[in-house]
């Protein structure tokens, strides 16, 4: 399948990096964060980029998964896998319950509702000190063991997150070309026209919202075990915005756009620390410039630009040769 060539190239890249640079901080430490962010961005892209909806509260689901794992393993001594499953189930139920009323809303109203939801969840994390440790967060979260194989080094975490991330990317690529994916894109085009095709638009939007929330919950759990520590700032409003920015930056409605956006937005602040106080300023300037000069997003804009350039070069070549022959 031609469509999967890009994916296999990406798999090769992800697999090669730690082999080439086994002790590189950017690969094994930042790389893990990038992996988390890719999953979050790719999942949210299904909802924002493909279904044409908006969620400004997605960090809440990421946080719910993380806190479910943190609380159940440290306070109740549950196994991390069970805790992860229960967190996932809780997020599934909550996302399903809120999706029906929330997804009746559109545009700004949907943005406000999801924003409000995210903020409420974050306030709960801060306020229920007995459970969550409040603003100070919770430490001492155990690591993860996979069939007796302890995920106890940066490199091993890299491997685990890489697998989860690649699976997410693969699923996303496949959804888009399926019946469900076409329904999603139809909803984006026109909900009314989608309905006249027999698409249950409310259900379609709800399903992708819940799916995206569940993926966020899963990586939230992994995040808690990888960091051994969680606190509310990791799941606040700004994180929600950051995930949305990754999707938009890379280019909406493109799985690799979301991947690219997550990579750039995770790496940039790391690189820009050398600018100290000016870091945020420069980051802001870069983001604004990208949106001005490549409004379709970085990845989508560059690949389209590249394709156009190639076509133009080829077109210039053909008449010249034809002239020489004739």
């Amino acid at each position, binding site marked *: 399948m031609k469509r999967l060539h890009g994916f296999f190239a990406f798999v090769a890249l992800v697999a090669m990096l730690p082999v080439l640079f086994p002790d590189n901080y950017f690969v094994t430490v930042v790389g893990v964060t990038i992996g988390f962010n890719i999953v979050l961005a790719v999942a949210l892209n299904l909802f924002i980029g493909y279904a044409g909806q908006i969620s400004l509260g997605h960090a809440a689901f990421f946080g719910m998964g993380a806190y479910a794992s943190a609380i159940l393993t440290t306070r109740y001594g549950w196994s991390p896998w069970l805790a992860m499953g229960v967190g996932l189930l809780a997020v599934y139920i909550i996302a399903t319950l809120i999706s029906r009323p929330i997804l009746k809303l559109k545009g700004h109203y949907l943005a406000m509702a999801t924003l409000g939801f995210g903020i409420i969840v974050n306030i709960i994390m801060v306020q229920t000190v007995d459970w969550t440790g409040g603003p100070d967060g919770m430490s001492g979260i155990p690591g993860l063991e996979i069939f007796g194989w302890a995920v106890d080094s940066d490199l091993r975490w890299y491997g685990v997150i890489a697998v989860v991330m690649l699976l997410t990317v693969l699923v996303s690529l496949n959804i888009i070309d399926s019946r469900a994916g076409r329904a999603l894109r*139809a909803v984006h085009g026109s909900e009314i026209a989608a309905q006249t095709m027999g*698409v249950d638009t409310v259900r379609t939007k709800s399903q992708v919202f819940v799916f995206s929330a569940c993926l966020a919950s899963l990586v939230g759990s992994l995040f808690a075990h990888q960091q051994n520590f969680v606190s509310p700032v990791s799941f606040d409003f700004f994180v929600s915005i950051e995930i949305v920015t990754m999707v938009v930056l890379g280019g909406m409605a493109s799985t690799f756009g979301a991947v690219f956006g997550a990579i750039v937005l995770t790496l940039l602040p790391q690189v820009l620390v050398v600018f100290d106080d000016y870091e945020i300023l420069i980051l802001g300037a870069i983001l604004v410039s990208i949106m001005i000069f490549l409004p379709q997003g970085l990845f989508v804009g560059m690949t389209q630009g590249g394709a156009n350039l190639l076509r133009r070069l080829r077109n210039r070549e053909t008449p010249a040769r034809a002239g020489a022959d004739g």
Partner: protein
Amino acid sequence: MPSSDAPLLEVVDLTSHYGPIQAIHSVSLEVFPGELVAIVGANGAGKTTLLRTISGVQAASGGTIHFDGEEITRLAAHKIVNRGICQVPEGRQVFAPLSVEDNLRLGGYSQRGDGDWVAEQIGKVYELFPILHEKRAQLSGNLSGGQQQMLAIGRALLGKPRLLLLDEPSMGLAPLLVAEIFRVVRELHEAGTTVLLVEQNARAALQIADRGYVLETGKVAISAPAGELLEDEAVRKAYLGH
């Protein structure tokens, strides 16, 4: 008990509102199996609203709609499609960022699990509109208006229509294309499809229709066999230009 003398679609005293504005008032109409029925009327007469209410994308505020003997008045739009009422919406509404073929596949969304039929039907649509086959990999947003209309019709045919609702298929098209679209509508009708056709282009619609309804400010003003409407003095003056 469906039989040939029972209507396939039966609309009784239907009303529909946009907020406080009532767009259609107590409209009653029938479409019998195999018929081509035209609804003509001026700008803003409520033709689109009527079709949208039948297909369920717009809520009815009163009255009933029966399809093949079953009440569908309050059914959700996607369930109505599953019963076999397929709408070609006003302004075509093709999915611009999707390819022509993906648009057709979406048309077959309701035929879940019948991939063979969908593939075969897509082939038939390409026979009906060869230009769509030529452009099957292109984004439908890049098609001309006429081609988009063909796609919209083709897409509706993928829903296995027992009743095809067409909303102003001639809108904004050059005369040659209008003739082409109407030729296809007639062909579909001759092949046995039941059609409810809404048009401002009253002459063209009534020429291919069996019966017609004239809609005026949300009410049925006249209903008669199409040939009679074409001869009717008042109709000629108001809708046929002389």
